[in-house]
């Protein structure tokens, strides 16, 4: 299982120090689906990248990322290469950009398969075709020789999933897996991920800004705002009894699909402060409807309230 403890990521540029993630902790137990939700700039993708060790050298990563008891941050580059792919796989927001445009799907899948398993070219190709059939690519045995640009975005995401699954990872990190896809394709991809999770016996970490996706597929939800976790809990707790004012605002902003009801969605006002110049105290204090004096002085600690944990003085 994956345990993230007190993870902080800062980017140091010449002029500024940008704190993208600040002391977050969460767990992904074996076989579960955990969702990280937050708006752009909340640090959710940076969290995913830091687990994979894909951040550039200008990033300073502190804390612990434990994978089955081993701290990923202390591993050498060689050890990381073994963990990457074979144990933890990553799929991206834009699947077309994540596939190398100058090689056919067959080339890329066979390359990956032969890297992680000792297979001949023919065996690897057969296995790749099987995997493509598993992610519902029609005529997989013919289309495997096509190039990424010859597929639609939804198909590319399926191929990306097949490519990642070819390594049999124990944990799949899905960074906005459906953000660039239309709604019907989104539902298909999520359904596919759910099926494959059982078949491959893996756990999934979904990173998304879309509460709908998170609600449908996750066992546990982590809500992030400006690099901090503000609330974590089960989907029921988060959706039916949100505790943190930010979570409440997110849920209130979902428009109702009922045509008889007037649109009661209340979008959150104001803008997210810049991570270069963070507000003192609680980071939500610039937009919070229930803001108190205390929120400008201290950082709220986590407290257990019913099924969820929340970082807000309202619940102390």
């Amino acid at each position, binding site marked *: 299982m994956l345990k993230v403890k007190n993870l902080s990521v800062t980017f140091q540029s010449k002029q500024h120090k940008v704190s993208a993630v600040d002391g977050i902790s969460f767990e992904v137990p074996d076989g579960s689906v955990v969702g990280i939700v937050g708006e752009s700039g909340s640090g959710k993708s940076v969290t995913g990248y830091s687990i*994979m060790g894909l951040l550039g050298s200008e990033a300073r990563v502190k804390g612990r990322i434990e994978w089955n008891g081993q701290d990923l941050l202390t591993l050498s580059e060689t050890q990381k*290469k073994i963990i*990457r*792919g074979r144990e933890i*796989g990553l799929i*991206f927001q834009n699947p077309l*950009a994540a596939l190398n445009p100058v090689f056919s799907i067959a080339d890329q899948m066979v390359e*990956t398969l032969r890297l992680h398993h000792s297979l001949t070219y023919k065996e690897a190709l057969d296995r790749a075709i099987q995997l493509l059939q598993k992610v519902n690519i029609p005529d997989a045995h013919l289309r495997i020789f096509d190039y990424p640009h010859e597929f639609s975005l939804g198909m590319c995401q399926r191929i990306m999933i097949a490519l990642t699954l070819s390594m049999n990872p124990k944990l799949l990190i899905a960074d906005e897996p459906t953000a660039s896809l239309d709604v019907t394709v989104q539902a298909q991809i999520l359904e596919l991920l759910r099926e494959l999770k059982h078949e491959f016996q893996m756990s999934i970490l979904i990173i998304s800004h879309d509460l709908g996706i998170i609600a449908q597929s996750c066992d546990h939800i982590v809500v992030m705002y400006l690099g901090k976790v503000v609330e974590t809990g089960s989907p029921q707790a988060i959706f039916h009894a949100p505790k943190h004012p930010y979570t409440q605002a997110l849920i209130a902003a979902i428009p109702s699909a009922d045509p008889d009801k007037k649109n009661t969605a209340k979008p959150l006002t104001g803008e997210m402060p810049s991570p270069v110049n963070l507000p003192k105290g609680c980071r939500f204090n610039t937009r919070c409807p229930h803001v108190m004096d205390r929120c400008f002085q201290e950082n709220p600690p986590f407290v257990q309230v019913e099924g969820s944990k929340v970082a807000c003085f309202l619940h102390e």
Partner: protein
Amino acid sequence: MKLSVTKVCITYLLLLFLVSIAMVFIPGLDVNAFDPNVVITGPQSPSLTHWLGTDDLGRDLLLRCLDGAKISLLVALVSVTISTTIGTLLGVLAGFFRPLDAIVMRFVDMMMAIPTLFLILILQVILTPSIWTVVSVIGLTSWMGTTRLVRAEVLSIKERVFVKAATARGIPTSRLLFKHVLPHALNPVIVSAMLGMGSAILIESVLSFLGLGVQPPYASWGNLLENSLKYLKEAPWMTLAPGAFITISVLSIHFIGDSLRAKLDVKDRA
């Protein structure tokens, strides 16, 4: 079929190369055969028997120029291969590995600060001039532009998502570099190699002109020019013939390089 400048240039260069190679296999043809009568009377002007005239030894200039094409084109081809290989390798290393970047690029700056022609001249004076020293000296002193190009491309390509995705699949660094990054950086390299061939022909001509390049009896356009100097007034065709070959060939190469750039520039089409 539309007659394009590029097609004419490609045809010209191919024909030139093939003819100059084929000449080796024509029995009884000796480009170095001289006419004792001419040695006394001086170079002959262009006529029906000698289309471009003869030199001071009565050797047919057209044949000499075609024979020289083989050497000149070979020098260009081999030296560009050397410089492109070195340039690409160093560029990839500098672009991909941050700590190497400063070292390699400062070395490039240093090499570029040295006037190349003088460096080549000094090296040629120290070494015994031969075709192979010409080739290696040109190759070893003209890779810096390629390094800069490749480094710049690699810097941007290594940030692209598919490279991150390949890293996330645990693909080894060497494979990542040469299979996933390098092919995307090659377009400008092909163009610069093409243009590099043009300047290699020119450098070879300059060296041979100064007597430091290809040595007689081998003919190259440069040493044909050198030989013509003494007769510039009475036999201008001896200068014009190899000069025209150099100009037309370099121009053709540049035209081809330019149209390659237009064809390969993805940004232009998107």
